[in-house]
């Protein structure tokens, strides 16, 4: 530290410890929503209801981890929900219909999701196709394979290992299930990984300025490939959580999860242009959507109005974020 002492002007990173501005916006939006719903329904503000909301966002929240990674590289993944659905069908059908060992079956399901991630990644890096169009294509492909492989039949009578994550434990009034806890652990791990590890920083660098990153000698294509495969891993985990939550392998799961996950990422303050954002914001974003759905249902608002209000609130939340950032400047 002797060199640092020579230049008193250079601070040694105190800023790093401040809360990042990017998560302030969604936090404000969440707080406003919570206060509002509390005045509207006396059933809203309870530990038990909040643990319920967390359970409900478990699947989309896990998908959104993968989606955040991809969006940080300035990509986008429309296939995430369908890939998740395929993973669920693969693992349940292998275990139930083909009698495979359940853990092996789970592994196969997750690997199927990662294979899709690999295909997405290869198309993006090798042929340089835009992620939007690649994942639009693989979304359709994953959907069709899911329907064909499952014969459009829901798969029931799952072995207990597959529904383990759906079991709940009591934590001071809250009945959290293991899946929710696992999701939160994943978020904290990825937050740390993106902030404090070399591959994590390279994800930001690629999203920030791909050409510059390439010129510094980082194999940007490998970083991208890794991101897409890792995203596939998270979709695979999400498929296990989804199976555990509903107790069945459902070929029609995941149809709207792509827009939901992207909404969570954007609400959480990650830039669609890549390179800027904090993954914990995504969790906040997912929770915001869950809070609205729960709160509006508790209020007895008809679902068409829920769609209307969700539309307005998505815009409002991001606008709050934008305006709070301006204020911070």
């Amino acid at each position, binding site marked *: 530290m002797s060199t640092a002492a020579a230049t008193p002007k250079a601070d040694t990173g105190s800023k790093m410890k401040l809360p990042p501005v990017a998560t302030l916006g969604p936090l404000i939006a969440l707080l406003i929503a919570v206060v509002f719903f509390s005045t509207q*329904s006396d*059933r809203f503000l309870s530990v*038990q*209801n909040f643990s*319920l909301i967390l*359970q*409900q966002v478990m*699947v989309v929240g896990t998908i959104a981890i993968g989606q955040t990674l991809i969006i940080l590289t300035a990509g986008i993944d429309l296939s995430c929900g369908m890939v998740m659905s395929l993973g669920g069908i693969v693992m349940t059908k292998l275990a139930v219909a083909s009698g495979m060992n359940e853990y092996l079956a789970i592994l196969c399901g997750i690997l199927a999701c990662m294979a899709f991630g690999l295909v997405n990644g290869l198309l993006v890096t090798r042929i340089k196709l835009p992620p939007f169009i690649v994942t639009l294509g693989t979304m359709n492909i994953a959907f*069709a394979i899911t*329907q064909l492989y*499952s*014969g*459009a*039949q*829901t798969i*029931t009578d799952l072995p207990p290992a597959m*529904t383990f994550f759906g079991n709940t434990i009591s934590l001071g009034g809250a009945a959290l299930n293991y899946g929710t806890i696992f999701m939160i652990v994943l978020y904290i791990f990825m937050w740390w990984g993106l902030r404090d590890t070399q591959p994590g920083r390279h994800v930001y660098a690629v999203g920030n300025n791909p050409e510059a990153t390439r010129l510094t000698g980082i194999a940007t294509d490998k970083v991208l490939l890794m991101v897409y495969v890792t995203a596939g891993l998270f979709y695979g985990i999400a498929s296990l959580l*989804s199976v555990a*939550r*509903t*107790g*069945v392998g*459902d*070929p*029609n*799961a995941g*149809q*709207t999860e792509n827009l939901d996950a992207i909404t969570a990422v954007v609400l959480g303050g990650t830039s669609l242009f890549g390179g800027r954002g904090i993954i914990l914001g995504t969790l906040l974003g997912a929770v915001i959507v869950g809070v609205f*759905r*729960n709160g509006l*249902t*508790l209020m*007895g608002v*008809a*679902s*068409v109005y*829920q*769609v209307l209000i969700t539309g307005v609130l998505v815009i409002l939340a991001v606008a709050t974020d934008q305006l709070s950032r301006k204020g911070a400047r």
Partner: protein
Amino acid sequence: ADQPVVGLITKTDTNPFFVKMKEGAQAAATAQGAKLLSAAGKQDGDNAGQVTAIENMIAGGAKTILITPNDSKAIVPAIKKAQAQGVMFIALDSPTDPADAADALFATNNYTAGELIGKYAKVAMAGKPAKIATLDLFPGHPVGAQRHNGFMNGFGLKSLDAKSNELAKDAAVVCMADSFGDQAKGQTAMENCLQKNPDINLVYTINEPAAAGAYQALKNAGKEKGVVIVSVDGGCAGIKNVKAGVIAATSQQYPLKMASMGVEAGVAYAKNGTKAKGYTDTGVTLITDKPMAGVDSKDTKVGTDLCWGNK
């Protein structure tokens, strides 16, 4: 006493069938002094959204939940979990699988609905070799499969049973296409089918908007005469088209009835704890102005009286 809370979870928001069902439930709830919570899947087939809705309604104090399951099997674990908390479940419109997973079922049978128009079409073709186009829903949807397979069975073609989620095929079906239950997509599907086989003389459609689209396509091609269109649903707009001769016959269902019966059962359960049980068929009626011998049907006047939607 607390106001009884009844939850209604429909498949989607967009189908007029479910919109009417919700209006029926609301009317019944208002009449009985109950509070209605409603929610829907985000789209056809969305099971996870319905699971979320169940949880939220229980959190909102609902003791009875009426549900039109998007996925008859997939919803069962969530229902079981909720029943363990003392909630009564009534399946509306389509059964759960197994059917006894819900406490009661108020429904029409989609397979039967398909069979009725299949039988009608068989007679209407009067022995002519049928060249059939089917405008189905979309891949993997059980209602789409049940109506399609019921139609095939009623017509006497090779078919699959009521539990199958796959669409039966037969040589007489010269073209199968998805309409998504949407008029514009139904029209495109029919245009392409006509392109494939211009001699199509019988069109099965998943619902009446798709039937209207099919008719539009036939009319543009100058072939609307001599082609029989049959459909399912019985909405007022559909019955109007039956009256106008656009649709030859349709199987009418009764969403309002299902909903009001469900709400009544829910209020009863809240008041004195009596649970509804078993299967109540709310019925399906074949509506046509060109009745065929050997097939029971009612005319469009009856259909209009009983139809849902704007008369």
